[in-house]
Every structure is written in structure tokens, then in C-alpha cells.
């Protein structure tokens, strides 16, 4: 397609950026397919492209929603909404549950961090020099 070797080299670099690693793609496919299943190279590479299209498509939809609502950051709810809107409700439901769990875990972690930070702040600065040496 591209005659210029320089151009094709730069498009190769771009491909690495715009596609997921084929090893990961292959591994995920192997997990779901029967052991003796074979996939042509062309099909595997096309799956790579399809997956990138999916990411762009869903993100774009979530991004539009944020823009309409005058928000700058896409959050998990926006992604779930986009999945539902685009007809991937099969994913939206389990992912919403996952998101809640994730927020729970992250919330706990954040609270723990806050607690330890506030402890440090309460200690007088001189305390450091008084720390016993082991």
C-alpha cells in the first residue's frame, strides 16, 4: 500500500501504538476456544484491529457524553453507559457490578492512605531524630 519505505516504517511504529499486542490477543482467544481450534494469521490480525476499533468506539461515545455534561474526565459510569447505549448491555451489567466492587476496594485503600497520612501529620517533626536506630 505504501511505497515510501520511510512512511511504512513510521506506520509500523504507529501500528504498535494503535493495536493491542498480538500475544495478548492470541492468549485471550485461546482461553475461550477449544484446544484444537486454529486461527488464521489474517483472522488474528483482523481481531487485533477490531478490538482497537471497539476501544475507540466506546471511548468516543463516553467522551461525547462527558462533553455534553461539561465534564472533562471520563469515569467508569460513562463507560458502562456507553456500552449500554451501543448495544453491549451484556457487558454493562457485570461491569457495573465490577465497578462497584472496584470502588469499594479503592475506597478502602484511599481511606487507609488518608488515615496513615493524618497520623504522620499529627506527629511532631522532631520525632524523626528521636527514632530508635536498629
Amino acid at each position: 500500500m505504501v511505497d515510501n519505505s520511510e512512511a511504512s516504517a513510521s506506520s509500523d511504529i504507529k501500528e504498535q501504538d494503535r493495536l493491542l499486542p498480538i500475544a495478548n490477543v492470541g492468549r485471550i482467544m485461546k482461553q475461550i476456544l477449544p484446544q484444537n481450534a486454529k486461527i488464521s494469521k489474517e483472522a488474528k490480525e483482523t481481531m487485533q484491529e477490531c478490538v482497537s476499533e471497539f476501544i475507540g468506539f466506546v471511548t468516543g461515545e463516553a467522551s461525547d457524553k462527558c462533553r455534553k455534561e461539561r465534564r472533562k474526565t471520563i469515569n467508569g459510569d460513562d463507560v458502562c453507559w456507553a456500552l449500554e447505549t451501543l448495544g453491549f448491555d451484556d457487558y454493562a451489567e457485570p461491569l457495573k457490578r465490577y465497578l462497584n466492587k472496584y470502588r469499594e476496594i479503592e475506597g478502602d485503600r484511599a481511606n487507609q492512605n488518608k488515615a496513615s497520612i493524618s497520623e504522620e501529620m499529627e506527629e511532631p517533626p522532631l520525632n524523626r531524630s528521636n527514632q530508635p536506630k536498629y
Partner: protein
Amino acid sequence: MAEQEPESTITESVQPEIPTRRVKRIMKLDKDINKVNAEALVVITHATEFFLQFLAEKSALVALEKKRKTIKLEHLRVAVKRHQPTSDFLLDSLPMPAQPSDQQLLKDRAKSRANKKPVPVGTRKIDAFFQKFT
């Protein structure tokens, strides 16, 4: 009972198989995308895995229907066509059908040209007939 099931699914798949950094890079290819928070990235990564598994599974089914052992691009295409939401955004992005069919078309045309007998001098062509009356 049903409530317990999603929990185990979530804890099993906490770590995405796909590298989130790459997913983020792909998302950022769209210049309109501003910021994406951590939870959104994780949700989209998992959704992408679901999508890939879905494509692989459905393609394998098509290959099976056609009694083929190797999953090929045309099987993927049929799988995409069969799922409306996926077809809407993906069908046009798939590579054109395999070249052998184009080559066959050219071969057929060449054959028919070779078989044509030269027309006698003075024979009126059908085009002339239409040009007169339109």
C-alpha cells in the same frame, strides 16, 4: 445464590489480561478525548476482553458451521454481521473479501472476451438503438 456468583467472577478476573497502558494509548489516539480516570480504564479494558472473547467464540461457531478447522477472516465477517451492534461499527472496517475472488472475476471476464465472435461489418449495435430513443 445468584448474588454470590458475580462476586467470584469479579475476583477471578481482577487482573485484566490486556495491558491497560496500551488500552490508554489507543484511547488517546482520538484527539477529542480529554482525561480518562483509572476506573474507566479498567472497565474499558475488561469490556475489550469480553468483546474479543465474543468475536473469537462467534467466529469459531461460523467456522464449525462451514466444517472448517481454521477460523478465517470470512468467518469473522459473518460473526460480525450476525450481531447488530457490532456490525454497526465494525463491518465497514473489516478488510475487503479475499483477493482470489477478484482474480476469478477477472479470469471469467477474460474468458468471455476471448469467446466473443467478431461481429459482421455493418451490424448495428444495441447501444445505438437506445441512444436514438432516450
